[in-house]
């Protein structure tokens, strides 16, 4: 009886936030999904900004065009840019954050001061960071003449945001193949891991998943997901894929801003490890480096995962930093967020803009949802 009343009370207390969330988050997500399946802004007979514009349902056409139409190459470049940006931004933040955290863990004098200094960039908005770094990276600007003024070396000639160099080139149509190989490789590693721990059942699942992926690839199902380009030869010449060197400056700025935050997460993790464990390891003859390698780092795995999720979703949604540093019109540094803005508010192609926004949402959901799911499952297991 009592528990029913508790439940009702809980539900009533939660109701306002459920209603607000439902309206302002999920209703508008639904709105964006339905917009992305219309021809709003594509049909030149219907003025897109009219109050009574007729929007016809076109299904997945906008998504199909983004994946295959010649003139939609900026979207594909933006996806590649997001991939590399996320990769190097997350790796850079984790490395910098870990190094800073380990340094501060050595019991330096004035640790609180340094912690504040390293954390400080996070208090700036990305727009401020972007503007500062844009000035520093200008030709003849701060960072470029630093080697010259400090050491008398040649100034850096690299064209940070305007470079047209492409590293690690690959073809857009090869991506499904790479994803397949990568997926199988990861599953193989997991299988080996499970087998070594003697969990045969789990290993069988992993092998099964790998076989399914291989079959999907072999059956040509990828062509339905990763639509073939209309003109593959043109694509390679007008929008070559690879790591755009123009992103390096933006990655540096982003790492500068967020590595202090990652450091704070690591410090919290390290402080959570009890001193007795370290003592015990030392008593057993473990070296200081060994303590970090075998005691501290393994226990930081959950922190690393959380940091990856938080940094990853920031980088998938990045907009302001790129806008401030490279401008919205820089074709080499374009990211999906910028495209949503340009397609929507410059070209009035609102449906296409909504489609890109949905793809961004999906990509963020791909990392957030499994994480939340495993967290919630872990919690209920703890309780049960």
């Amino acid at each position, binding site marked *: 009886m009592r528990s029913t009343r508790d439940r009702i009370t809980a539900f009533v207390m939660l109701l306002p936030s459920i209603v607000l969330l439902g309206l302002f988050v999920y209703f508008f997500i639904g709105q964006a999904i339905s917009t992305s399946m219309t021809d709003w802004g594509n049909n030149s007979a219907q003025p897109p900004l009219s109050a009574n514009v007729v929007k016809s349902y076109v299904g997945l056409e906008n998504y199909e065009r983004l994946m295959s139409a010649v003139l939609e190459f900026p979207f594909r470049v933006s996806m590649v840019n997001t991939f590399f940006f996320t990769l190097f931004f997350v790796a850079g933040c984790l490395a910098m954050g870990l190094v800073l955290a380990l340094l501060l863990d050595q019991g330096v004098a004035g640790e609180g001061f340094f912690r504040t200094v390293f954390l400080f960039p996070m208090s700036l908005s990305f727009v401020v960071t972007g503007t500062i770094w844009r000035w520093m990276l200008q030709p003849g600007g701060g960072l470029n003449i630093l080697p010259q003024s400090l050491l008398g070396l040649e100034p850096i000639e690299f064209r940070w945001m305007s470079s*047209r160099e492409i590293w690690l080139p690959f073809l857009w149509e090869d991506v499904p193949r790479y994803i397949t190989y990568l997926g199988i490789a990861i599953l193989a590693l997991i299988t080996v891991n499970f087998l070594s721990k003697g969990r045969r059942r789990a290993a069988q699942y992993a092998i099964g998943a790998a076989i399914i992926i291989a079959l999907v690839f072999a059956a040509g199902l990828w062509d339905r997901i990763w639509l073939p380009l209309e003109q593959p030869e043109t694509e390679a010449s007008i929008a070559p894929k690879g790591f755009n060197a123009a992103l390096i400056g933006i990655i540096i700025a982003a790492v500068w801003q967020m590595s202090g935050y990652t450091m704070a997460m690591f410090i919290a993790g390290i402080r959570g490890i009890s001193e007795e464990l370290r003592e015990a390891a030392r008593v057993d003859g473990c070296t200081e480096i060994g303590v970090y390698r075998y005691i501290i780092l393994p226990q930081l795995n959950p922190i690393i995962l959380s940091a990856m999720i938080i940094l990853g979703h920031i980088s998938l949604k990045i907009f302001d930093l790129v806008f401030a540093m490279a401008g919205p019109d820089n074709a080499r540094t374009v990211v999906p967020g910028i495209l949503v803005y340009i397609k929507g508010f410059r070209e009035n192609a609102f449906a296409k803009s909504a489609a890109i926004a949905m793809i961004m949402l999906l990509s963020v959901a791909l990392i957030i949802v499994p994480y939340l799911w495993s967290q919630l499952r872990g919690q209920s297991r703890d309780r049960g």
Partner: protein
Amino acid sequence: MKQRIAFLCILALLLAVGSFANAQDEELTGELEIFSWWAGDEGPALEALIDLYGEMHPDVEVINATVTGGSGVNARAVLKTRMLGGDPPDSFQVHAGEELTGTWVVADRMEDITFIFEEEGWYDVFPQDLLDALVVDGAIYSVPVNIHRSNVMWYMVDNVEEWGIDVPTTWAEFLDVCPTIQEAGVVPLVVGEAWTVNHLWESVALGVLGPEGWNSIWTGELDPAGAEMVEVWETFGDILACTNMDVDASGLSWQQATDAVIEGDAAFNIMGDWAAGYLTTTQGLEPDVDYGYAASPGTDGVFMWLSDSFGLPVGAPHPDNTVAWLRLLGSLEGQNTFNPLKGSIPARTDAVDAEPDLYNAYLQSTAADWSEDVLVGSLAHGTAANERFMGEFNQVMEIFLASGSAEAAASAMGAVCIQSGACG
């Protein structure tokens, strides 16, 4: 008693008539929100207009809502969210031409203000080409404040003399002197961030195609993927090789690009004549003495124009105040207050003659060109093509920059023409 009632009735009537007459010349009250992208160097000109409005209608509180960003790139995005959200300003700045008609008029978001033009007798004072860009189905939708010229080439008189080069009058001449200038360690032609490259492109296209060829792109008579267009892109590619495109272009604002000319790092710059205002007012240089100007190569006698205008959006909260504002904008006094400060010429053809002393040598010569030259609309500044074309033209430009192929660019432009419906 009856007499008394009759008397009261007459009194009431008189009072009513009196108050009605009062209402006629009653001072305007309330607010007037003016939305524009005139901030920074261009701010004082707008402020002067607002001050003038304040003197005429002291009870109206003018709200000067500006969103910075060259050519209105950011302002337009903010404006769209406001219009779509049902919160239009009382009046907003919009480029005359397709940006007004192709975006807002076709969407039924603008009020017909033909009555202002009729009452003020403005049909005779604005050139017909300009009026054509404001009219849809015989109704006029905005009041042009100023005229800017897009196809102007800027240089420093002393520098050009020192390097011993003549100011090129055709693109062929420019390409001839290009190596000479480069050998002197100077950038022959400086460009800046993306839109300034589009700006250069329209001058090149006008130079190669001529005014009739340019206009025939937008009427559908010239194939945007055809041989003429390929030639435009080829010439454009040769010209880009004489610029700082591969060095630092994308990081430069148009002012910084102009600075490169002033400092002697670059020889020429193609920019709209808002650069004259920057050179004269901000940098304190004399036209003809310190800095020189010429029509961009191959476009002598052609005036590629763009015009800032203001209209009355549907659902504006204070339409009476807006109408008064529009009347001021189109008046001789309004145009002669605004334009000398902005560094542009009045859209009215009679304004400069009324008070020539207000305008410097550059503006006087441009005003003369405005009434004599062949007029064509600008692409990069919203006159010639709709916003969809302008947006997708950036993709065409990127295709050209990435592949260097004039054919690929021309065929992409053909596709964009069809998609956007901008070419005829």
